[in-house]
């Protein structure tokens, strides 16, 4: 067959899981149960396709928007080495967006539609990128701790059932390890520097702690659909489990540097082995994700500018004989 999986038929929108062909659904679930991957041309429940498109698309948007807060400091990076490294990191993030958009496209949503939905505010992206990088230290905290949170999420999802997403994440994780090392090194440099540098880092950490606690999403008890998504191996770990893993791995590293975390209740319960913390403000999370954060409008305006100003170049290069087909894998 041609590589074209036709764009999802409109009358399929909203098809519920119980409306699927029971035999095909059973075969599909058995395949996942056996640890086999689902490929774009396979039959899949509509809800599986919808959730994956939503998730991969949001992930792609997060990468491309995530390049903006960090990019803020490229022009004023402290020294040539840091400038080169930050430029490389930002370029990586944009490359990750390309990989993820491609994976989402295999599910039948063209890239133009995803960009439309981003700029019109219809699709979301990671909430943390709606906050500003006020100083150089903010970019250091992002590179270390936001990337650390992302790696926990991505390593888990790389083992998920959808082939193209897993393959994209494998490539992404390989590059993220550089980001984490770079971010850690930059934070340690500030933490072991002058009192002013230490203060700058501490203030950035204070600013970013709430977004960091928001990063893995609302507590499990409020998340819907998690059970089916975990059975289908779309979601590989619960929000709370990922947050616990993050705290377990990074709180000791933060404390080791003599920094404080702005949560007096943060401690590891030695009996349960779980971290206890003050729930971050989830109303703020909802408010910011729905558009009312400090940088939402600016982030989207920058994307809009890039798309609009680049359009004439793209159009000049289109060959009228070419046509779009859904990518194969």
């Amino acid at each position, binding site marked *: 067959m041609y590589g074209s999986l036709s764009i999802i038929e409109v009358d399929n929108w909203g098809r519920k899981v119980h409306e699927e062909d029971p035999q095909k659904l059973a075969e599909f679930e058995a395949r996942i149960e056996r640890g086999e991957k689902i490929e774009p041309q396979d039959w899949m429940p509509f809800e599986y396709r919808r959730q994956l498109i939503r998730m991969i698309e949001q992930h792609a948007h997060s990468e491309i928007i995530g390049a903006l807060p960090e*990019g803020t400091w490229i022009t004023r990076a402290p020294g040539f080495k840091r400038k080169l490294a930050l430029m490389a990191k930002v370029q990586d993030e944009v490359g990750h967006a390309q990989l993820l958009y491609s994976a989402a496209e295999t599910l039948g949503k063209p890239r133009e539609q995803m*960009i439309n939905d981003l700029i019109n505010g219809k699709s979301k992206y990671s909430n943390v990128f709606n906050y500003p990088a006020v100083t150089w230290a903010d970019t250091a905290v992002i590179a270390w701790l936001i990337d650390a949170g992302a790696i926990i999420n991505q390593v888990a999802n790389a083992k998920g059932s959808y082939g193209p997403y897993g393959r994209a994440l494998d*490539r992404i994780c390989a590059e993220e390890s550089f980001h984490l090392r770079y971010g850690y090194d930059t934070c340690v440099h500030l933490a072991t520097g002058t009192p002013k540098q230490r203060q700058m880092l501490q203030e950035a950490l204070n600013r970013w702690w709430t977004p960091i606690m928001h990063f893995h999403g609302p507590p499990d008890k409020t998340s819907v659909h998690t059970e089916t998504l975990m059975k289908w191996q779309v979601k590989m770990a619960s929000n709370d489990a990922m947050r616990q893993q993050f705290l377990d791995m990074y709180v000791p590293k933060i404390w080791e540097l003599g920094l404080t975390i702005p949560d007096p209740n943060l401690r590891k319960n030695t009996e349960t082995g779980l971290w206890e913390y003050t729930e971050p403000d989830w109303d703020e999370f909802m408010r910011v994700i729905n558009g009312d954060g400090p940088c939402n409008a600016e982030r989207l305006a920058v994307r809009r*500018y890039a798309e609009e100003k680049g359009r004439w170049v793209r159009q000049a290069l289109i060959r009228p004989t070419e046509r779009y087909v859904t990518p194969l894998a």
Partner: protein
Amino acid sequence: MQFESLDPRVNRLRLVRTNEAFDVGHEMDQWQTWEVFHQQARGDQHRHVGIVHAPTAEMALLFAKEQYARRMKCVNLWVVRTADVYASEYEDADMFEPAFDKSYRESFGYTQTRARIDEYRKAQGLTTPAAAETEKQAEPVAAKTTVKKAGIVIGKKK
């Protein structure tokens, strides 16, 4: 009203707030896709690694270099229009299963040869030295591996 950004590059753009709906317009604004194949070292197979969007083969190759050969070692890249790939369907994957016992065309289908010689030599009372040792040494290693793999595939077929 203009944005006041912390990023001097953004301020230089003099972006203005707008509520106008954004529309990238027609299909193909982001061009068609090309499947990218990457060869890590001379002598290796080219391996499919993903896609790029590009208007021409030359630009596809340029983007493929940026996207897929930025970190990983690479000596050669291919790009092929997605539309030009003619692929089989996963639904038809059963066509790759052998329809019946085809051991006659596998090296593991020929395991009784030695036994036949031994039987013959015994019946005839032949005393010339057996070639077993030298034969064992001469047997190609690669063929042995194939036997084993093919054995698993056919032997455990459901």
